[in-house]
């Protein structure tokens, strides 16, 4: 009785989803627009061609992927090790450390950006990939940490005890039991961190160097300059990649479930 949606609430949900996808549809549509300007002038693939020839965009995409992968990997290591270690530790500054390491997630991005700009300048660190990675790892860690921590809290300690009882050393028990059981949490944290890294404009804006433009920054400057239909083609391709990945993931899960 209670758990039924009326047609009006269904319509509402559909409309909000439409709102979410409307600009995306438009972008996809206009990526095939023959005209360079806003008006519609028939189908064309020229923007995809132009995109493939645009070295700047391609380089920034490469930079962004490199940045996202490396900061994800580093933050997985630091965040997971931290969460696992925290669960086994008791020390006085533990709560403080936890709260401070979570700050990047709650802080308006611009504050972290400004902090890094001034901090790295005073230390005379040259801006580029290194500063970008440091900044991205910092805001990625909390996503991993929180996910892993809550999974660990919900994990029955008996699993690890059973492994120890059956002859596994603490380290071995971690690799055999704890890690596989927290890996879904690591994965979902990493996916979010990856998206955040690929999407970040604000922090990157402050810590990037001249040779390390990221994709979002490249797009930002292109959009500020004006008409850029290549960007639409890029968006379409990325969307395609995301949905392909999602489809693959769903397929993989179904296959795995069948095999089990």
């Amino acid at each position, binding site marked *: 009785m*209670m758990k039924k949606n009326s047609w009006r609430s269904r319509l509402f949900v559909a409309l909000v989803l439409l709102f979410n996808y409307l600009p995306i549809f438009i972008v996809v549509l206009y990526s095939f627009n023959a005209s360079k300007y806003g008006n519609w002038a028939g189908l064309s693939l020229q923007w995809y061609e132009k995109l493939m020839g645009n070295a700047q965009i391609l380089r920034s995409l490469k930079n962004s992927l490199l940045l996202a992968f490396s900061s994800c990997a580093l933050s997985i290591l630091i965040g997971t090790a931290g969460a696992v270690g*925290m669960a086994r530790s*008791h020390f006085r500054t533990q709560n403080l450390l936890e709260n401070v390491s979570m700050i990047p997630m709650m*802080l308006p991005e611009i*504050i972290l950006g400004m902090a890094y700009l001034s*901090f790295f300048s005073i230390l005379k660190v040259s801006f580029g990939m290194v500063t970008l990675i440091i900044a991205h790892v910092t805001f990625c860690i909390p996503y991993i940490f929180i996910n892993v921590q809550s999974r660990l809290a919900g994990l029955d300690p008996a699993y690890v005890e059973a492994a120890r009882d059956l002859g596994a050393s603490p380290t071995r028990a971690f690799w055999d039991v704890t890690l596989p059981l927290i890996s879904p949490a690591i994965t979902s944290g990493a996916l979010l961190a990856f998206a955040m890294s690929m999407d970040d404009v604000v922090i990157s804006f402050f810590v990037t160097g001249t040779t390390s433009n990221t994709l979002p920054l490249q797009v930002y400057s292109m*959009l500020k300059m004006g008409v850029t239909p290549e960007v639409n083609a890029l968006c379409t391709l990325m969307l395609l990649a*995301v949905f392909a990945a999602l489809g693959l993931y769903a397929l993989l899960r179904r296959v795995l479930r069948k095999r089990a």
Partner: protein
Amino acid sequence: MLGKPNAAKGGKKRVISPTVWPLYIWTALFVALPLVYVVTISFLKKDEIWGVTNQFTLGNYLSLFDPVYLKVFGQSFLVAVSTTALTLLIGYPFAYFTAKFSPAVRSFIILLLMAPFWVNSLLRLNGWIILLKANGPVNELLMRLGLAQEPLKLLYNGGAMMLGMVYALLPFMITSIYNSVEKLDWSVIEAARDLGASPAKAFFTVTVPLTVPGIVAGCVLVFVPSMGLFFISDLLGGAKSLLLGNLIKNELMQARNWPMGATLSIAMLLFTFAFIGIYKRVTGEKTLGGIK
């Protein structure tokens, strides 16, 4: 007690697992230290060209009360509040209705909502720019329908900026609230109905109070970034709409006034902390549980 390494009689012994150290060091170096540095330079005078001098001053904080800054503060606050209110108004019913669907439909809707997240938000915002352009589809539609004689100026104003803000931040509000609503024990609402509450009464006296943690988490997640997303006001709002984020960016990159940038950041930080403080007070939760 010698020779009895683990003989702690239940007392909390000081144990630091070695795997905590990377996090510890990283946090100290790249979170705590930069933030302390920001606080420090907010009390220093700016140098002629760029950087800071070693002279202590409270001048930066006094300048906050400069009408120019106050105006931006006010504007920024207004934008943040309206963005929060709008996302809440759209997000709550959406999350509520979504939670009422069957589990399969539910997770599909959430997936649909989150999927574009992995595509750069700027690329998506570009969709709105195209739509609202003078020669874009919306204007064309309006003119064809005879609702407008000439292209309306839909872009580069406060409205377009608000649209962009709501668009960019709505998913955060929805997922926070959804996490709360999903955990709801529906039999409690049925009990309220059984005890004589009308659907509306049951909603406002039972459902809403039970989902307050999600609401507040969502509000924090929307309010906090909405003061700083300078690129949205840059791209959709035009030069006229200044947010706190734009102001800080300009102080840093154009005026090269780091101390002022730092001071503005700290003012913003205090805003944020006040908000998170309210969140913790209201929900009694330690972390922002609504965050995915």
